[in-house]
């Protein structure tokens, strides 16, 4: 049995109350669906003094569609998104991404906001305390859970590198990036919007001295909603994993007329660069080759990184072929 650490639970009922608490408790963890945070707390990766349970905030729930586009509240569950007829018509690629997350039971609990802010994952980090201690000896303190951050400084992924390459594993994010989605962030100071693409820093760790942190949002901000402009064409989502359920991705590929985004290869999603402006008349082999040459997966997953790199070419080709079919292109 993995016990949860001791903490004080705060349950705000309105957004202003939640923002005041967030500002007063900058080290608190925000709990929404809990599908990522609670397992990590059980594994001893986080031991917060305070937990801010925001599931009661009605302002953060629901989907609205109008002439400006789509607004999905951060606490909207992935199941609600899957069942929404408007989303199925407007953004089927995003609905497919929601459907590919874990399992239907977990989709009932998991929220869109939680998926955007999902922690990065590494096979040496997302393990029980017992497992990590066995590997790292006495140095694997529960304070960080990361063998590289602890005093021994052992990293089995990038032994010589300074950075953390834990994999960004949020299924909905590559598709949201291609849709030009924006995150609405609120704090006691006000509200701002940030492109989903700009949420993520270059390091997989939360506290990364002298590198950009994992999430580029301020300590007092709460993710309130995701805004998606009315899409002009289809988006394709592809996920590589060992089993058809439960597993986190070992490679994500999203493609639309706007371009191709890869994820789960490093700490943040990456756009494939140096390709044509539009994927509608793209040379599929050339784009797949460009994606392959820009992908540098490390051994963050149990499956071989060389195989994951090869799968980038395969999956980009498949995604573009699927996109061409959706666009009525006979290729």
């Amino acid at each position, binding site marked *: *049995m*993995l*016990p*949860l*650490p*001791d*903490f*004080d*639970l705060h*349950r705000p009922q309105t957004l202003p109350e939640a923002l005041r608490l967030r500002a007063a408790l900058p080290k608190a963890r925000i*709990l929404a669906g*809990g*599908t990522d945070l*609670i*397992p990590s707390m*059980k*594994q001893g990766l986080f031991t917060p003094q305070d*937990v801010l*349970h925001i*599931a009661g905030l009605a302002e953060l729930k629901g989907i609205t569609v109008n002439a400006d586009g789509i607004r999905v509240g951060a606490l909207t569950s992935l*199941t609600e998104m899957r069942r929404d007829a408007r989303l199925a018509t407007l953004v089927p690629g995003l609905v497919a991404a929601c459907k590919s997350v874990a*399992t*239907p*039971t*977990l989709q*009932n*609990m998991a929220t869109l906001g939680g998926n955007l802010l999902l922690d990065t994952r590494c096979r040496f980090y997302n393990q029980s305390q017992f497992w990590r201690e066995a590997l790292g000896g006495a140095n694997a303190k529960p304070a960080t859970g990361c063998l590289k951050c602890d005093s021994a400084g052992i990293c089995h992924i990038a032994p010589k590198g300074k950075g953390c390459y834990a994999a960004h594993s949020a299924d909905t994010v590559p598709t949201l990036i291609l849709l030009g989605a924006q995150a609405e962030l609120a704090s006691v100071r006000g509200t701002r919007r940030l492109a989903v693409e700009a949420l993520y820093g270059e390091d997989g760790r939360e506290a990364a001295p002298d590198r950009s942190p994992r999430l580029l949002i301020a300590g007092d901000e709460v993710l309130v909603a995701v805004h998606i402009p009315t899409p002009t064409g289809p988006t394709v989502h592809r996920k590589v994993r060992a*089993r*058809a*359920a*439960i597993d986190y991705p070992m490679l994500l590929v999203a493609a639309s007329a706007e371009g191709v985004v890869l994820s789960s290869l490093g700490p943040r999603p990456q756009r494939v660069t140096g390709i044509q402006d539009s994927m509608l008349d793209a040379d599929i082999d050339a784009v797949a080759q460009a994606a392959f040459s820009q992908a540098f997966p490390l051994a963050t997953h149990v499956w071989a990184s060389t195989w994951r790199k090869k799968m980038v070419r395969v999956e980009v080709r498949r995604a573009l072929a699927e996109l061409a079919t959706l666009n009525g292109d006979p290729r």
Partner: protein
Amino acid sequence: MADPIILRCRLNGTPKTELIAPNRSLLDFLREDLGYTGSKHGCDVGDCGACTVRIDGAPTLSCITLAASVEGKSLQTIEGVAGSEPTLVQQCFHEHVAAQCGYCTPGIVLVLEALFEEQADPSEEAIAEVLGSNICRCTGYTKILSAAIDARERRNGRPAKPPTPTFARDL
């Protein structure tokens, strides 16, 4: 220790008021505090589905849910599924021998009951998709799937799909 909090919810139709620690998981609350041991302790980190309960109808993993978060909600555990007679899903599981060690069975019965409430006549793919929520290491899922399909046929007034004989003596 953080101060205990009062939790009010309905469990299998009965109102409950209990004092709990803020870090009590719903699974520990059900099993240790209330003695409802039908929900099982499996992986403890939200992978396996053995701890599935229904919160306001939706299947949820109780091992990664805080007991405090079900305040004012309605819970159903496997103990609250059957009336005086087993449900059709339970009856089909029995006839198809769809449980071996039985550890995953409560969770699987709950996700199937929820599926049938939501969709009267789900496709085989839809059944297989929700079964992906629950890990079974004994049966290989064949008998679970055949029991679920039999339940679907019978609840829609179609002829039963009896279990395939497993042993030579049954042939």
